[in-house]
């Protein structure tokens, strides 16, 4: 039970960290055309 908790909690933590990094990269490299702006 303790092993399962350790595995699940760390996998979730790393997955969330990956999500944050991916989100930050996506936002920081977003261009006007991606938002539908035509400037």
């Amino acid at each position, binding site marked *: 039970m303790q*092993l399962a908790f350790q*595995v699940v909690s*760390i*996998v979730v933590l790393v*997955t969330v960290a990956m999500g944050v990094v991916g989100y930050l*990269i*996506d936002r920081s490299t977003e*261009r006007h055309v991606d938002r539908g702006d035509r400037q």
Partner: protein
Amino acid sequence: MDLSPTHLHLLLNHFPTIGFIIGLTLYVAALYANSDHLKQAALVIFVGVAIITIPTYASGNAAETAICVAELSDPCADTSVSRPLIEEHEGAAFASLTMMFLTGGFAWLGLYQYRRLLRLPRWNAILILVLSLVTFATVSRAAAIGGEIRHPEIRVTQIAEGQGRPLARVVGNFVRDTPAAWIIAETLHFVGLSMIIGVLLLINLRTLGVLKTVPFGALDRLLPWAVIGFGINAITGMLFFAAAYGQYVKGYAWYCKLGFIVAAGFNTLYFFFDKGWAMEPGAPARPMSQLVAFSALFFWVGVMYWGSMLPFLGSAF
């Protein structure tokens, strides 16, 4: 001539050292000249060298098992070869591989930023410079210790049996002896694999003519997720290998997997210089882009195939 993993290590170990020096020199010159073309060339070299460093590191452990067949806890039968020195070299190489991943990762981000933003942001330019200098230092140390293994005339590193605690053995033994560590790494390895294959299937199938109504630009935005997946798999793969390299280096499936990883990595770099990303919905990709997309699918299926064959083809899982 039979090409052994030792030959492979002797051949490949020049790339992380000499190749990286070329990349670093080019990058510094590019910053000085403020040339975007030179910066992109240097970033490609950083990413390329980082990819080649993976088989360089892995073939090192194969070379160790070839020149020192004794049990890990015992000294080598050949008294001119020092097991602690080999492990010190392995530890230095582990540190340099970690730094190489970081430098290669941010260099890849720089190339992506060039395509998306048409410039390299100052923060990333400085970060890549700092990381590349640290990487150069760690690679130089690994190379210097590596040379001492077979050249006693230049040997300055002295480590007695049982005295050293090299990084790769500390990390590897922790993963080997901690039940949760291997399970966590294995789970994350499959999460990373799903991210890579999911994104690359979409991008490459679009290039081959499937989903024609979807613009390339929309799929292009998914690419960082595949690279994050690759990063996770590179790190977890390193942990598996450090924990139990003996079960990998004996089977040819491992070398096939490494070959496919290198080919797939270089294949992905091609798309930074392909103009297909600017195409409108419905437009077909150029034949060259389609060829590279097809080869990308082939290489990634190969990586998965040889990865899943590891326990079955000549290995000792």
